[in-house]
């Protein structure tokens, strides 16, 4: 097995997924640390350019949730 870990950039909606990520913390759930969250006001704000920029900057995956 390779020990390669993907770098994930996530764009989370302030009202649902960002709150859910907060709740994951409140509930003391655990998940790998290779994710960086960018809070957006709504996934309506998400632009394909953001995803492309993240990939170009070296992200291995982009996760949009909302």
């Amino acid at each position, binding site marked *: 097995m390779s020990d390669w870990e993907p770098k994930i950039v996530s764009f989370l909606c302030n009202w649902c997924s960002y709150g859910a*990520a907060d709740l994951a913390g409140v509930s*003391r759930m655990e998940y790998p640390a290779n994710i960086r969250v*960018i809070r957006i*006001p*709504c996934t309506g*704000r998400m632009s394909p350019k953001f995803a492309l920029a*993240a990939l170009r*900057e*070296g992200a291995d995956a982009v996760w949009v949730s909302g």
Partner: protein
Amino acid sequence: MITFKLNGKTVQGEEGQYILQVAEKAGVEIPTLCHHKALEPAGMCRICTVELFDGRRTRFVTACNYPIWEGMEVKTDTEAVHAGRKLIVEMLLARCPEVPLLQNLAKEYGIGTPRFKLENDTCILCGLCTRMCEKMGNSAISLTGRGVEMKVDTPFHLQTDVCMACGACASVCPTGHITLEKIREVISRRGSRLIPSEYDMGLKGRKPVYVPYAQAVPNTPAIDRDVCVHFKTGGCQVCTSFCGVDAIDHTMEDEIVELDVGSIILAPGFEPFDPSKFDSYNYAKHPNVITSMEMERILSASGPTGGHLVRLSDHKEPKKIAWFQCVGSRDLNRCDNAYCSSVCCMYAIKEAVIAKEHAPYDLDCAIFFMDMRTHGKDFERFYDNAKAKGVRFIRSRVHTIDPVPGSDDLSIRYITEKGETVTEMFDQIVLSIGLQTDPEVVAMANRLGIELTPGNFCKTDTFMPVETSRKGIYVCGAFQGPKDIPQSVVDASAAASAAGEILAEARNTLTKIPEIIPETNVIGERPRIGVFVCRCGINIAGVVNVPEVRDYAGTLPYVEYISDNLYSCAQDTQETMTQIIKQKKLNRVVVAACTPKTHEPLFQETLINAGLNKYLFEMCNIRNHDSWVHKNNPDLATQKAKDLVRMAVSKVALMQPLPEAELNVNQTALVIGGGISGMTAAKSLANQGYETHLIEAGDRLGGNARRIFKTVAGDLVKDKLAELVQHIEGDDRIKIHLNTRLTSVEGFVGSFKSTLTAGDSIEELEYGVAVVATGGTALKPEEYSYGQDPRILTSLELDEKFMADDPGLKKINSAVFIQCVGSRQPDRPYCSRVCCTHSIDNALELKKRNPDTDVFILYRDIRTYGEREYLYKEAREAGVIFIRHDRDNKPQLRIEDDRIRITVTDHVLQRPMEITADLVTLASAILPNKDESLAQFFKVPLNDDNFFVEKHAKLGPSEFATDGVFLCGLAHYPKPIDEAIAQGRASASRAITLLAKKTINTSGTVAETEPAICSSCGVCVSICPYSAPSFIAADARMHAGKAQINPVLCKGCGLCVASCRSGAIRLKGFDNDQIFAQIFAMTEAV
């Protein structure tokens, strides 16, 4: 002012100061072992020796007690000085070779083994202890003997009464010669003990000068007169030497302040029951028998063990913990608290679940209970989940806790439901203690002349749940009756509304306008960013290396200031931040702490107070998204925190000040639902002077209350309801709309517009706030042959028979009540809260009408919470027979030869028994009046059970997350009349907080078009769910036909921004360049 030379530099000091004091101020370090700021210097250790040139010759003097004089020259750093100090340290080390302080000093001076004879002392005779003892006003110890015989001692080497065991000597001893143990064993004859920290339930000590807890408001230290040495001897006052702002005044006295008020709200709370008097539980004797309040502290991250689950006797991690319910509640044998404390079942389950989460191993949690009372919203689900997580629930009341000889474990013997006696061992036992009224509160109530209940709670009426027996005095919280946080918050709002109603005319007559801090214009300035990293106690700092993150932030571009705080949200930290922003002229702020969803407004307030636009701010979430979820990976978590800080810094540098639009709040209110809670809300709103429209889908007011016979207190609901309806109908500020439905809702907080449809007639209404009180209804049961026999009724149908005074009710031989019909089952996993009390009340009514009727109540858990418990006791005394069953073994009902036969397994006999009944009452569940269209109109959510979801389960029970929309009554959750009335008033109270403001500010993070680029394609106009974009009129002078966005309607979602083909729309606060900056900062550009 005296001027002299210190190491060649000219320095100044006050007359009477010593060299050491001036040197300290000048930043010149002189070592000393015997100096203390609060004590007169004694020149005992001589390490502070310096070189003094008096104009003629050079001398060596001790800096600590040599007064300065004009023209003297002092040198602290010469070879001769160092040689002298080295010799002193060598001699001290020879005297006390084992003292770490001296070993370290010796290392600094390059001393190996001293050349002198080694002794085995630990005291360097610095005299700090004796001088400190004298300062305490006590002089229990002094230096005795002469020459080599000199030592610190008590008179005649005897343990003394004079010593108060205050510990001051030990606190200043530099070598560890005097310790607290030594004080106990050889100095004081009085036992020394820690001052217990009240906040930590005595599990930790605190100082006589203390802040009660980290988030206390105000966050100012207080002096505990009862333990402060100054108030015993007149001495000490050491604290005053350390206070830089001279804030300590030991002569302050209690003051009597007289206030003119129009009403009083009592919220004195409760005191936890003290189980010390229960000998058989060994609480007072055994450290591993603790109270639930102590358990709360042990589970808390800021508690005495830092959230680490250990038992107190040996700090071992417990493998098995038991909770005993009803300690100090539902108990007339061993205490006088006959009532149920309402909250203990739920908190015990919560503690058990959290304890299991905290333990890194499989912790066994067992809860011993009588009836499991999880009657609150979503509590039954929590109970079910706890069972699924392996918490054991054992229905048994345990009499004795026996210490296991030779160990710290505890042994208990209990009888299972099947009648078997079991002996089980536990590492720790938690007593779920009840709530009771403090005797001081009872005394206060007597002084105020307000009536109390038998349980010493404030007496209130079902229809006036926050009114005390004295006009103008209101009550909320646990003094009204034992209750949990949501109900206390509802009560608090209701009491505020009650007070507001009688004082409506005086509103705003004593208002002071807060000082508006002028906003500093930062446009065009180079960014000066301040980064504040929060430790959040140990929540963040326990995982993330906070100093490293802080220092890292200092390396980022434009960052001018960095710091870390214990609790960034604490009031004093906020004040400090305000000062720092002003002093350092910061124009952008980053707080790395918890989630912006809860704390952004707080920090934005800090910016406003510092004169900065609140949008020059960015939060990064290093707690919820980092330390809490990566607790086993501190290194990765620290790296992540740095990345998040870097991303936030690069975004905040691009933030611009944003304006907020101000809009008027329409001063009219709309209440939807004409039941008890809706009518109460309308009445409160009108009483406070607001025009209110009350709409009711049915043809009359009153809702379910019309079908309820009487209150627990015995009042006829019909009479009280008629009074309320009459009041509503007679108030011209309330417009009643019967047979009316809401068919459309437009607009937003402060400016809603709706269509009211009544048959063919349609009316438009504009209003500022809406209260949803759409109520609920009784389930029509599909089991127990309901509907097939007139003798099988629901609870409300039995009430109707009582109201009609049905003569048949006197002729019943046997009546059976079946509980939880449709409640607490997989498809409806909630408790309907009111049915146990209702059935018991009705059982008593049947007994009253005919004492010979046999009455059976077939129940799962009796949930007569609070003082409703008395009714349960009364019913048992009246001969009502209670038979318990469980969900998997429900009673069976069949009709044979026109007789109703019910079979149920008796929980005591463990055998099925048959009851022939003339009357069967089914306590059917309360269902919400599901209203999806209303949910969509106001964009408010429904939960899985179709009850509306409030803003916050605990802190916002009577309002929605949608601004301007409020909630009360059965639409929120099943509740009895008193609670529905309290929530009706609470929702009005919350609504009035908006109405009273008259204007509100909208968000600054809204979309804005750039008309020059706009192609007028219209995508934004069609796509926006809030109708914020529109076309500029074709005949407009500028930008005709281009899109524009109404900042009041815009919710800042950014949908239009992403959809704009021309790139003509930007979202302020989440602009393209700002988000790209975050993306680009993700990987470190080194």
